[in-house]
């Protein structure tokens, strides 16, 4: 050992001693504790259907559609249809129904009494319901629930005698890049049956806590959060996690500890 390194170590040891007077006894040779580095993944299922418009929004859109219908340029029938063709008659029928829907019965005068029937073809598909069976059964493991909201993956950690909900998390080895560690730890924790994408290389958040290890209670753990998206597949329970759930922001609050919620809530989307 060179002299300069030895002197430096002694200085570090003395510094540690001074600090230790207030907290805990430590030896002069006790090396300063480096915090543990961890990476967590905020795995997101983005909205898969458009937002349900509010009553006001629906009324607004309807009103604007009526204004547009009243003010639009005359439709060039000759350009789009051959005169007297079946397609034109069909279009006229449908147009009359739309006019009547927009402006009322009195507005459409001609042929208003005759039975206007538009045959439904096979192309008229019935849209899928906005609420799925997963919404009815409140199955938090199903990715098809809450289609218009953001869902986030939470896992139930049951290692080291703990039993709490958190985002999938793992340790970063020295020399490993954060986004690579995130991808690896996600597979380790939640299985490889997921098609995911980690958004960029930069962390979106940071959280510091006392690591729950009983041998070293003063050791802190610094967790960097990276955002990810799931496109297909599903999480699996492993030996380190006993359960998982896909939750909205509001549902997460009731499951996680208070300080964890305060440290992570701003990374989540309100929608």
């Amino acid at each position, binding site marked *: 050992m060179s002299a300069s390194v030895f002197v430096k170590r002694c200085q570090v040891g003395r510094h540690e001693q001074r600090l230790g007077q207030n907290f805990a006894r430590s030896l002069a040779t006790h090396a300063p504790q480096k915090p543990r580095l961890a990476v967590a993944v905020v795995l997101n299922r983005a*909205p898969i259907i458009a937002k349900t418009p509010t009553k006001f929004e629906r009324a607004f859109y309807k009103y604007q559609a009526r204004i547009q219908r009243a003010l639009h340029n005359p439709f060039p029938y000759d350009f789009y249809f051959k005169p007297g063709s079946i397609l034109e008659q069909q279009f006229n029928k449908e147009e009359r129904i739309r006019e009547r829907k927009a402006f009322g019965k009195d507005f459409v005068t001609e042929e208003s009494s005759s039975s206007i029937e538009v045959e439904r073809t096979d192309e008229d598909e019935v849209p899928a319901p906005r609420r799925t069976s997963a919404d009815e059964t409140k199955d938090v493991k199903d990715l098809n629930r809450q289609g218009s909201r953001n869902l986030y993956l939470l896992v139930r950690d049951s290692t080291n005698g703990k039993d709490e909900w958190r985002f999938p998390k793992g340790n970063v080895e020295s020399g490993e890049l954060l986004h690579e560690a995130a991808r690896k730890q996600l597979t380790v924790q939640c299985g490889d049956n997921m098609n995911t994408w980690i958004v960029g290389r930069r962390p979106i958040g940071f959280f510091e806590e006392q690591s729950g290890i009983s041998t070293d209670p003063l050791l802190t753990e610094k967790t960097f959060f990276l955002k990810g998206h799931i496109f297909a597949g599903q999480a699996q329970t492993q030996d380190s996690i006993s359960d998982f759930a896909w939750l909205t922001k509001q549902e997460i609050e009731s499951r996680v500890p208070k300080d964890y919620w305060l440290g992570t809530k701003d990374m989540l989307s309100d929608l």
Partner: protein
Amino acid sequence: MTSRIARAVARSRLAKKAPPVRYFQRDERGLPIPHIDILVRNTHQCRLQEHYHDTLRDDLMYLTYVHESKARPPPRQIRLTYDPEDPYSKHRKNLPVGGSQVGKKPSPPTTASNVVQLEKICLHSMQKGALANRSNLLGTLMAFRALTGETEGGGGWRSSGGVEIVRGRKNVSGWVRPGIPIGVKVELKGEKMYEFLGSLVQFVLPRLRDFEGVVLPPASANMNTPSGVSGVVTMGLPPEALGFFPQIEVNQDAYPRLYGMHIHFVTNAEGVGAQDKARALLSGFQLPFCRR
């Protein structure tokens, strides 16, 4: 005292005339003209716009974030500032040192409010046949109208230019003369812009033969150019692509022939790296990019 005031108030009320009833002015057909300008706003939810605000915006902020730990230093003054009184510099040009600074324009600091977003889409098409006969432009004009649904002042919006005719500016012998119509162009914003983008990436590009994506310049290409710092992504569509738009497909035989066009996606990104940000945004809308 109080009764006197009360009487005075009553008198003043009586003396005040009722405000005149404002009747609607009538147009030549006897229909009422409203007192205010009526504007047509969004008539339905815009799916792609929602997708941008709910999903893309957050991801783009994380992807394009550049960390700056402290405030930027002021620009270095290499040359002495121009002094018009100095007899040396009085009649000389004050050229920037180190050549043109256009391609080196720094990007603004990353904040949550200047995340890259689409501002407008411009389409234009130049028709060589219009030089010989200006009526050759009519087909393109009609196709652009059907494609975009834009009219001049449409929906009461004065800012809406509709489909415009582009006229020649220069005199190039045997090719173009000033003032003659040679093409059409249209600017799309807001709801209609997202609708056009949606139909382009869903109906047209997947059906185009031999289209792998918008071709990127080689990785070694210099991006310190005016286009590299402008945040505008440009692509071209061949004539056969026009027939794949649903608006044209319904009566394709009504057009004399199909027309190609240029598409410019204008974003709010600026400065170094703006082109990359704009491409990241568009690939979020599923516009493919490829490298040869």
